[in-house]
Protein backbone atom coordinates (compact mmCIF):
# COMPACT_ATOMS: atom_id res chain seq x y z
CA UNK A 1 0.00 0.00 0.00
CA UNK A 2 2.91 2.23 0.79
CA UNK A 3 4.19 1.74 -2.76
CA UNK A 4 0.84 2.67 -4.23
CA UNK A 5 0.73 5.92 -2.30
CA UNK A 6 4.33 6.71 -3.25
CA UNK A 7 3.52 6.19 -6.91
CA UNK A 8 0.32 8.21 -6.73
CA UNK A 9 2.06 11.16 -5.12
CA UNK A 10 4.92 10.86 -7.59
CA UNK A 11 2.65 10.83 -10.62
CA UNK A 12 0.70 13.85 -9.43
CA UNK A 13 3.91 15.72 -8.61
CA UNK A 14 5.32 15.00 -12.05
CA UNK A 15 2.13 16.11 -13.77
CA UNK A 16 2.07 19.34 -11.77
CA UNK A 17 5.68 20.10 -12.66
CA UNK A 18 5.01 19.32 -16.31
CA UNK A 19 1.90 21.50 -16.38
CA UNK A 20 3.76 24.44 -14.86
CA UNK A 21 6.51 24.04 -17.41
CA UNK A 22 3.93 23.87 -20.19
CA UNK A 23 2.43 27.14 -19.06
CA UNK A 24 5.87 28.67 -18.96
CA UNK A 25 6.61 27.42 -22.48
CA UNK A 26 3.39 29.06 -23.70
CA UNK A 27 4.46 32.37 -22.22
CA UNK A 28 8.01 31.94 -23.50
CA UNK A 29 6.78 31.28 -27.00
CA UNK A 30 4.89 34.56 -27.14
CA UNK A 31 7.57 36.55 -25.44
CA UNK A 32 10.51 35.22 -27.37
CA UNK A 33 8.66 35.27 -30.67
CA UNK A 34 7.65 38.83 -29.93
CA UNK A 35 11.18 39.92 -29.31
CA UNK A 36 12.43 38.12 -32.41
CA UNK A 37 9.91 40.22 -34.31
CA UNK A 38 10.77 43.48 -32.52
CA UNK A 39 7.56 43.29 -30.53
CA UNK A 40 7.06 43.24 -26.79
CA UNK A 41 4.82 40.21 -26.55
CA UNK A 42 2.36 39.97 -23.65
CA UNK A 43 2.80 42.81 -21.19
CA UNK A 44 -0.44 43.35 -19.31
CA UNK A 45 -1.23 40.31 -17.18
CA UNK A 46 1.35 39.97 -14.47
CA UNK A 47 5.01 40.85 -14.75
CA UNK A 48 5.71 41.04 -18.48
CA UNK A 49 2.57 39.06 -19.12
CA UNK A 50 3.67 36.01 -17.14
CA UNK A 51 0.08 35.27 -16.18
CA UNK A 52 -1.16 35.49 -19.76
CA UNK A 53 -1.53 31.69 -20.21
CA UNK A 54 -3.68 31.56 -17.07
CA UNK A 55 -5.79 34.42 -18.34
CA UNK A 56 -6.22 32.56 -21.61
CA UNK A 57 -7.19 29.40 -19.79
CA UNK A 58 -9.78 31.32 -17.78
CA UNK A 59 -11.18 32.78 -20.97
CA UNK A 60 -11.36 29.34 -22.55
CA UNK A 61 -13.25 28.03 -19.51
CA UNK A 62 -15.96 30.60 -20.13
CA UNK A 63 -16.43 29.76 -23.80
CA UNK A 64 -19.29 27.79 -25.21
CA UNK A 65 -18.37 24.24 -26.16
CA UNK A 66 -19.68 23.86 -29.71
CA UNK A 67 -20.22 20.65 -31.62
CA UNK A 68 -21.07 20.91 -35.32
CA UNK A 69 -24.46 19.41 -36.07
CA UNK A 70 -23.15 17.15 -38.80
CA UNK A 71 -20.06 16.00 -36.91
CA UNK A 72 -19.48 12.46 -35.71
CA UNK A 73 -20.37 13.48 -32.19
CA UNK A 74 -18.68 10.74 -30.17
CA UNK A 75 -15.39 10.93 -32.03
CA UNK A 76 -15.50 14.69 -32.08
CA UNK A 77 -15.85 14.83 -28.32
CA UNK A 78 -13.18 12.26 -27.55
CA UNK A 79 -10.53 13.43 -30.03
CA UNK A 80 -9.04 16.16 -27.80
CA UNK A 81 -8.57 13.57 -25.07
CA UNK A 82 -6.81 11.23 -27.46
CA UNK A 83 -4.44 14.05 -28.36
CA UNK A 84 -3.96 15.28 -24.81
CA UNK A 85 -3.58 12.11 -22.77
CA UNK A 86 -0.43 10.79 -24.48
CA UNK A 87 1.21 14.15 -23.84
CA UNK A 88 0.88 13.47 -20.12
CA UNK A 89 1.34 9.72 -20.33
CA UNK A 90 4.67 10.09 -22.12
CA UNK A 91 6.30 11.10 -18.85
CA UNK A 92 6.06 7.53 -17.63
CA UNK A 93 9.16 6.92 -19.76
CA UNK A 94 11.12 9.82 -18.30
CA UNK A 95 13.93 9.26 -15.81
CA UNK A 96 12.04 10.95 -13.00
CA UNK A 97 9.63 8.06 -12.85
CA UNK A 98 12.54 6.09 -11.40
CA UNK A 99 12.42 8.27 -8.32
CA UNK A 100 9.17 6.74 -7.20
CA UNK A 101 8.73 3.58 -9.26
CA UNK A 102 11.55 1.08 -9.59
CA UNK A 103 11.95 -0.77 -12.88
CA UNK A 104 9.77 1.85 -14.46
CA UNK A 105 11.70 2.93 -17.50
CA UNK A 106 13.84 0.08 -18.72
CA UNK A 107 12.78 0.51 -22.31
CA UNK A 108 12.37 4.26 -21.76
CA UNK A 109 13.39 5.45 -25.18
CA UNK A 110 11.21 3.01 -27.09
CA UNK A 111 8.31 3.63 -24.74
CA UNK A 112 8.68 7.32 -25.41
CA UNK A 113 8.20 6.91 -29.14
CA UNK A 114 5.41 4.42 -28.68
CA UNK A 115 3.36 6.79 -26.53
CA UNK A 116 4.24 9.83 -28.62
CA UNK A 117 2.88 8.09 -31.71
CA UNK A 118 -0.57 8.12 -30.14
CA UNK A 119 -0.95 11.89 -30.13
CA UNK A 120 -1.37 12.35 -33.90
CA UNK A 121 -4.19 9.82 -33.79
CA UNK A 122 -6.20 12.40 -31.88
CA UNK A 123 -5.48 14.95 -34.55
CA UNK A 124 -6.52 12.59 -37.33
CA UNK A 125 -9.70 11.67 -35.49
CA UNK A 126 -10.48 15.34 -34.82
CA UNK A 127 -9.98 16.15 -38.47
CA UNK A 128 -12.26 13.40 -39.64
CA UNK A 129 -14.96 13.80 -37.04
CA UNK A 130 -15.43 17.54 -37.56
CA UNK A 131 -17.31 17.12 -40.82
CA UNK A 132 -15.42 20.07 -42.19
CA UNK A 133 -13.31 19.98 -45.33
CA UNK A 134 -10.47 21.98 -43.87
CA UNK A 135 -10.35 19.77 -40.81
CA UNK A 136 -10.44 16.69 -42.96
CA UNK A 137 -7.49 17.82 -45.02
CA UNK A 138 -5.68 18.81 -41.85
CA UNK A 139 -6.27 15.40 -40.32
CA UNK A 140 -5.11 13.63 -43.45
CA UNK A 141 -2.00 15.76 -43.45
CA UNK A 142 -1.34 14.84 -39.84
CA UNK A 143 -1.36 11.19 -40.83
CA UNK A 144 0.94 11.92 -43.75
CA UNK A 145 3.27 13.70 -41.42
CA UNK A 146 3.35 10.81 -39.02
CA UNK A 147 4.16 8.22 -41.66
CA UNK A 148 6.95 10.41 -42.94
CA UNK A 149 8.71 11.39 -39.74
CA UNK A 150 8.26 8.50 -37.39
CA UNK A 151 10.95 6.35 -39.00
CA UNK A 152 13.81 8.89 -39.28
CA UNK A 153 13.03 10.06 -35.75
CA UNK A 154 13.25 6.50 -34.41
CA UNK A 155 16.42 5.76 -36.37
CA UNK A 156 18.11 8.97 -35.27
CA UNK A 157 18.40 7.69 -31.70
CA UNK A 158 19.52 4.15 -32.56
CA UNK A 159 23.09 5.39 -32.48
CA UNK A 160 22.56 6.77 -28.99
CA UNK A 161 21.27 3.42 -27.83
CA UNK A 162 24.38 1.74 -29.26
CA UNK A 163 26.64 4.11 -27.36
CA UNK A 164 24.68 3.78 -24.11
CA UNK A 165 24.16 0.03 -24.53
CA UNK A 166 20.72 0.56 -23.04
CA UNK A 167 17.35 2.05 -23.84
CA UNK A 168 16.96 3.42 -20.36
CA UNK A 169 17.22 7.21 -20.38
CA UNK A 170 19.21 7.22 -17.13
CA UNK A 171 21.83 5.06 -18.81
CA UNK A 172 21.76 7.21 -21.91
CA UNK A 173 22.56 10.26 -19.84
CA UNK A 174 25.14 8.36 -17.82
CA UNK A 175 26.96 7.33 -20.99
CA UNK A 176 27.59 10.96 -21.89
CA UNK A 177 30.24 11.46 -19.24
CA UNK A 178 33.11 12.06 -21.66
CA UNK A 179 31.26 14.18 -24.16
CA UNK A 180 27.62 14.84 -24.95
CA UNK A 181 25.99 12.74 -27.60
CA UNK A 182 25.68 15.78 -29.86
CA UNK A 183 29.45 15.43 -30.34
CA UNK A 184 29.27 11.72 -31.12
CA UNK A 185 26.00 11.93 -32.99
CA UNK A 186 25.69 15.31 -34.74
CA UNK A 187 23.91 13.76 -37.70
CA UNK A 188 21.57 11.96 -35.34
CA UNK A 189 20.86 15.21 -33.51
CA UNK A 190 20.09 17.11 -36.71
CA UNK A 191 17.67 14.43 -37.87
CA UNK A 192 16.20 14.17 -34.38
CA UNK A 193 15.62 17.92 -34.27
CA UNK A 194 13.96 18.01 -37.69
CA UNK A 195 11.88 14.96 -36.85
CA UNK A 196 10.94 16.45 -33.51
CA UNK A 197 9.66 19.62 -35.19
CA UNK A 198 7.53 17.44 -37.44
CA UNK A 199 6.33 15.30 -34.55
CA UNK A 200 5.32 18.46 -32.73
CA UNK A 201 3.57 19.98 -35.76
CA UNK A 202 5.73 23.04 -35.36
CA UNK A 203 6.80 25.44 -38.09
CA UNK A 204 8.04 24.59 -40.69
CA UNK A 205 5.97 21.42 -40.37
CA UNK A 206 2.73 22.81 -38.96
CA UNK A 207 0.82 21.36 -41.90
CA UNK A 208 -2.19 19.93 -40.05
CA UNK A 209 -3.23 23.36 -38.88
CA UNK A 210 -1.56 25.51 -41.55
CA UNK A 211 -3.61 28.64 -41.06
CA UNK A 212 -2.82 30.21 -44.41
CA UNK A 213 -4.26 27.18 -46.18
CA UNK A 214 -6.66 25.39 -43.86
CA UNK A 215 -7.98 28.22 -41.67
CA UNK A 216 -7.08 26.31 -38.53
CA UNK A 217 -6.84 22.80 -39.91
CA UNK A 218 -7.94 19.96 -37.70
CA UNK A 219 -9.10 22.19 -34.85
CA UNK A 220 -11.19 24.57 -36.97
CA UNK A 221 -14.41 23.40 -35.39
CA UNK A 222 -13.14 23.16 -31.84
CA UNK A 223 -13.90 25.71 -29.20
CA UNK A 224 -13.68 26.18 -25.49
CA UNK A 225 -11.61 23.74 -23.46
CA UNK A 226 -11.57 21.14 -26.23
CA UNK A 227 -9.58 23.54 -28.34
CA UNK A 228 -7.47 24.34 -25.31
CA UNK A 229 -6.63 20.66 -24.88
CA UNK A 230 -5.11 20.53 -28.35
CA UNK A 231 -3.27 23.70 -27.56
CA UNK A 232 -2.10 22.38 -24.20
CA UNK A 233 -1.01 19.09 -25.75
CA UNK A 234 1.04 20.94 -28.34
CA UNK A 235 2.96 22.97 -25.80
CA UNK A 236 3.29 20.10 -23.40
CA UNK A 237 4.85 18.12 -26.22
CA UNK A 238 7.19 20.99 -27.01
CA UNK A 239 8.43 20.85 -23.43
CA UNK A 240 8.59 17.06 -23.33
CA UNK A 241 10.48 16.69 -26.56
CA UNK A 242 12.93 19.41 -25.65
CA UNK A 243 13.50 17.52 -22.45
CA UNK A 244 14.07 14.33 -24.41
CA UNK A 245 16.47 16.16 -26.69
CA UNK A 246 18.34 17.50 -23.69
CA UNK A 247 18.54 14.05 -22.10
CA UNK A 248 19.48 12.13 -25.19
CA UNK A 249 21.81 14.51 -26.98
CA UNK A 250 22.83 17.28 -24.59
CA UNK A 251 24.04 15.29 -21.61
CA UNK A 252 20.92 15.62 -19.49
CA UNK A 253 21.70 16.73 -15.96
CA UNK A 254 25.45 16.44 -16.44
CA UNK A 255 27.40 19.64 -16.00
CA UNK A 256 29.89 21.29 -13.70
CA UNK A 257 29.30 23.50 -10.64
CA UNK A 258 25.53 23.98 -10.92
CA UNK A 259 23.13 21.34 -9.65
CA UNK A 260 21.93 18.78 -12.18
CA UNK A 261 18.35 19.99 -12.29
CA UNK A 262 19.52 23.47 -13.28
CA UNK A 263 21.61 22.05 -16.07
CA UNK A 264 18.69 19.99 -17.29
CA UNK A 265 16.39 23.02 -17.24
CA UNK A 266 18.95 25.14 -19.06
CA UNK A 267 19.42 22.56 -21.79
CA UNK A 268 15.72 21.89 -22.12
CA UNK A 269 14.85 25.56 -22.46
CA UNK A 270 17.72 26.08 -24.88
CA UNK A 271 15.97 23.59 -27.14
CA UNK A 272 12.57 25.21 -26.52
CA UNK A 273 14.01 28.56 -27.54
CA UNK A 274 15.60 27.00 -30.61
CA UNK A 275 12.20 25.63 -31.64
CA UNK A 276 10.60 29.05 -31.19
CA UNK A 277 13.49 30.71 -32.98
CA UNK A 278 12.98 28.41 -35.97
CA UNK A 279 9.29 29.26 -35.90
CA UNK A 280 10.16 32.93 -35.96
CA UNK A 281 12.23 32.52 -39.08
CA UNK A 282 11.12 29.98 -41.61
CA UNK A 283 8.07 29.44 -43.84
CA UNK A 284 6.09 26.23 -43.97
CA UNK A 285 6.90 23.34 -46.29
CA UNK A 286 4.33 21.78 -48.58
CA UNK A 287 3.00 18.35 -47.78
CA UNK A 288 4.53 16.64 -50.82
CA UNK A 289 7.85 18.32 -50.10
CA UNK A 290 7.65 17.09 -46.54
CA UNK A 291 7.20 13.51 -47.64
CA UNK A 292 9.91 13.81 -50.26
CA UNK A 293 12.47 15.22 -47.82
CA UNK A 294 11.75 12.66 -45.20
CA UNK A 295 11.78 9.61 -47.46
CA UNK A 296 14.46 10.62 -49.90
CA UNK A 297 16.83 12.43 -47.60
CA UNK A 298 16.23 11.87 -43.92
CA UNK A 299 15.44 8.15 -44.01
CA UNK A 300 18.59 7.14 -45.93
CA UNK A 301 20.63 9.60 -43.90
CA UNK A 302 19.36 8.24 -40.60
CA UNK A 303 19.99 4.65 -41.67
CA UNK A 304 23.46 5.66 -42.74
CA UNK A 305 24.01 7.49 -39.47
CA UNK A 306 23.02 4.39 -37.53
CA UNK A 307 25.42 2.24 -39.55
CA UNK A 308 28.26 4.75 -39.08
CA UNK A 309 27.68 4.57 -35.36
CA UNK A 310 27.62 0.81 -35.48
CA UNK A 311 30.97 0.84 -37.24
CA UNK A 312 32.21 3.24 -34.62
CA UNK A 313 31.00 1.04 -31.80
CA UNK A 314 32.72 -2.02 -33.31
CA UNK A 315 35.98 -0.38 -34.46
CA UNK A 316 36.33 2.40 -31.90
CA UNK A 317 35.12 5.97 -31.82
CA UNK A 318 37.96 7.34 -33.95
CA UNK A 319 35.95 6.91 -37.16
CA UNK A 320 32.69 8.05 -35.64
CA UNK A 321 33.02 11.78 -35.27
CA UNK A 322 34.47 12.69 -38.70
CA UNK A 323 32.02 10.43 -40.50
CA UNK A 324 29.08 11.88 -38.58
CA UNK A 325 30.16 15.43 -39.31
CA UNK A 326 30.62 14.58 -42.96
CA UNK A 327 27.05 13.29 -42.82
CA UNK A 328 25.80 16.58 -41.33
CA UNK A 329 27.49 18.61 -44.03
CA UNK A 330 26.13 16.37 -46.78
CA UNK A 331 22.64 16.58 -45.32
CA UNK A 332 22.82 20.37 -45.14
CA UNK A 333 24.05 20.49 -48.69
CA UNK A 334 21.26 18.24 -49.90
CA UNK A 335 18.63 20.35 -48.14
CA UNK A 336 20.11 23.50 -49.64
CA UNK A 337 20.05 21.87 -53.08
CA UNK A 338 16.44 20.81 -52.65
CA UNK A 339 15.43 24.41 -52.21
CA UNK A 340 17.40 25.71 -55.10
CA UNK A 341 16.58 23.03 -57.59
CA UNK A 342 12.85 23.05 -57.10
CA UNK A 343 11.04 23.98 -60.25
CA UNK A 344 12.59 24.82 -63.53
CA UNK A 345 16.30 25.10 -63.91
CA UNK A 346 15.85 28.17 -66.07
CA UNK A 347 16.24 31.19 -63.84
CA UNK A 348 15.90 34.70 -65.05
CA UNK A 349 17.69 37.48 -63.30
CA UNK A 350 15.59 40.52 -62.66
CA UNK A 351 16.76 43.12 -65.10
CA UNK A 352 16.43 46.78 -64.47
Amino acid sequence: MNGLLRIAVGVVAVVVVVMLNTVFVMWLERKFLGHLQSRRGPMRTGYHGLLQPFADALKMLGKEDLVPAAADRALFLVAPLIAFSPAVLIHVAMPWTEWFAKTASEIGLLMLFAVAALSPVGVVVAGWASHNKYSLIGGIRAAAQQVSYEVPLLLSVVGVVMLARSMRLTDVVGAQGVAWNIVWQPLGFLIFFIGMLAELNRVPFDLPEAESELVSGFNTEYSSMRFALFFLAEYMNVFTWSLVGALVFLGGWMGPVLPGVVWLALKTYALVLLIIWVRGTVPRVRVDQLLAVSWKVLLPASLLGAMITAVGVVFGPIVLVPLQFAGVLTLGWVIARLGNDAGEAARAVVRL
Partner: protein
Amino acid sequence: MDEAILAFTGFLLVAVALGYILIAIPRSLAPREPSDAKARAYECGEVPVGEPWVRFHVGYYIFALAFVVFDVEAVLLFPWAVVLHKLGLVGLIQMGIFIAVLLLGLVYAWRKGVLEWS
Protein backbone atom coordinates in the same frame (compact mmCIF):
# COMPACT_ATOMS: atom_id res chain seq x y z
CA MET B 1 2.31 -5.74 -8.71
CA ASP B 2 5.01 -4.52 -11.02
CA GLU B 3 5.74 -0.91 -10.23
CA ALA B 4 6.27 -0.11 -13.88
CA ILE B 5 2.72 -1.10 -14.67
CA LEU B 6 1.48 0.79 -11.62
CA ALA B 7 3.27 3.93 -12.75
CA PHE B 8 1.90 3.55 -16.25
CA THR B 9 -1.61 3.09 -14.93
CA GLY B 10 -1.19 6.05 -12.65
CA PHE B 11 -0.09 8.31 -15.47
CA LEU B 12 -2.85 7.06 -17.72
CA LEU B 13 -5.48 7.71 -15.06
CA VAL B 14 -4.18 11.18 -14.28
CA ALA B 15 -3.87 12.04 -17.99
CA VAL B 16 -7.43 11.05 -18.82
CA ALA B 17 -8.85 12.50 -15.62
CA LEU B 18 -7.07 15.81 -16.12
CA GLY B 19 -8.30 16.09 -19.69
CA TYR B 20 -11.82 15.15 -18.67
CA ILE B 21 -11.90 17.65 -15.79
CA LEU B 22 -10.65 20.44 -18.01
CA ILE B 23 -13.42 19.69 -20.49
CA ALA B 24 -16.02 19.35 -17.78
CA ILE B 25 -15.43 22.71 -16.10
CA PRO B 26 -16.89 24.86 -18.91
CA ARG B 27 -20.11 22.87 -18.72
CA SER B 28 -21.02 24.77 -15.59
CA LEU B 29 -19.21 28.01 -16.38
CA ALA B 30 -19.77 28.61 -20.07
CA PRO B 31 -22.98 29.90 -21.59
CA ARG B 32 -25.04 27.65 -23.80
CA GLU B 33 -26.86 29.26 -26.66
CA PRO B 34 -26.92 26.83 -29.53
CA SER B 35 -28.00 28.05 -32.92
CA ASP B 36 -28.07 26.73 -36.45
CA ALA B 37 -25.31 29.03 -37.57
CA LYS B 38 -23.01 27.88 -34.78
CA ALA B 39 -23.71 24.24 -35.52
CA ARG B 40 -22.89 24.61 -39.19
CA ALA B 41 -19.43 23.64 -40.41
CA TYR B 42 -17.13 26.63 -40.78
CA GLU B 43 -16.16 27.17 -44.35
CA CYS B 44 -15.00 30.74 -44.48
CA GLY B 45 -18.42 32.08 -43.63
CA GLU B 46 -20.15 30.53 -46.62
CA VAL B 47 -22.64 27.71 -46.77
CA PRO B 48 -20.58 24.57 -47.38
CA VAL B 49 -21.05 22.98 -50.76
CA GLY B 50 -21.12 19.20 -50.94
CA GLU B 51 -20.10 16.60 -48.44
CA PRO B 52 -16.62 16.36 -46.86
CA TRP B 53 -16.91 12.63 -46.14
CA VAL B 54 -16.31 11.40 -49.64
CA ARG B 55 -13.89 8.94 -51.18
CA PHE B 56 -11.14 11.45 -50.56
CA HIS B 57 -7.97 11.31 -52.57
CA VAL B 58 -5.13 10.46 -50.20
CA GLY B 59 -1.89 11.09 -52.02
CA TYR B 60 0.40 9.05 -49.79
CA TYR B 61 -1.21 5.64 -49.65
CA ILE B 62 1.92 3.80 -50.76
CA PHE B 63 4.00 5.83 -48.33
CA ALA B 64 1.85 4.48 -45.56
CA LEU B 65 2.61 0.92 -46.67
CA ALA B 66 6.32 1.62 -46.81
CA PHE B 67 6.01 3.22 -43.41
CA VAL B 68 4.82 -0.02 -41.85
CA VAL B 69 7.85 -1.86 -43.25
CA PHE B 70 10.38 0.69 -42.07
CA ASP B 71 8.76 1.26 -38.71
CA VAL B 72 8.96 -2.42 -37.86
CA GLU B 73 12.54 -2.47 -39.03
CA ALA B 74 13.39 0.53 -36.85
CA VAL B 75 11.96 -1.19 -33.80
CA LEU B 76 14.00 -4.26 -34.68
CA LEU B 77 17.16 -2.12 -34.67
CA PHE B 78 16.74 -1.10 -31.04
CA PRO B 79 17.42 -4.43 -29.31
CA TRP B 80 20.24 -5.01 -31.76
CA ALA B 81 21.71 -1.64 -30.86
CA VAL B 82 21.64 -2.47 -27.14
CA VAL B 83 23.70 -5.60 -27.58
CA LEU B 84 25.85 -4.53 -30.52
CA HIS B 85 28.98 -4.19 -28.41
CA LYS B 86 28.67 -7.86 -27.55
CA LEU B 87 27.89 -9.04 -31.08
CA GLY B 88 30.84 -7.19 -32.56
CA LEU B 89 31.75 -7.41 -36.23
CA VAL B 90 29.42 -10.34 -36.94
CA GLY B 91 26.41 -8.44 -35.68
CA LEU B 92 27.45 -5.42 -37.68
CA ILE B 93 27.68 -7.43 -40.90
CA GLN B 94 24.39 -9.19 -40.28
CA MET B 95 22.57 -5.95 -39.68
CA GLY B 96 24.48 -4.36 -42.54
CA ILE B 97 23.04 -6.93 -44.92
CA PHE B 98 19.57 -6.41 -43.49
CA ILE B 99 19.75 -2.65 -43.89
CA ALA B 100 21.26 -2.97 -47.36
CA VAL B 101 18.27 -5.05 -48.42
CA LEU B 102 15.93 -2.45 -47.01
CA LEU B 103 17.79 0.38 -48.71
CA LEU B 104 17.63 -1.57 -51.93
CA GLY B 105 13.89 -1.77 -51.48
CA LEU B 106 13.76 1.95 -50.87
CA VAL B 107 15.77 2.64 -54.01
CA TYR B 108 13.46 0.34 -55.96
CA ALA B 109 10.40 2.14 -54.66
CA TRP B 110 12.02 5.47 -55.44
CA ARG B 111 12.85 4.43 -58.98
CA LYS B 112 9.33 3.12 -59.42
CA GLY B 113 8.05 6.57 -58.56
CA VAL B 114 6.31 5.47 -55.38
CA LEU B 115 7.94 8.24 -53.38
CA GLU B 116 6.03 10.93 -55.27
CA TRP B 117 2.90 12.46 -53.85
CA SER B 118 0.22 11.88 -56.43
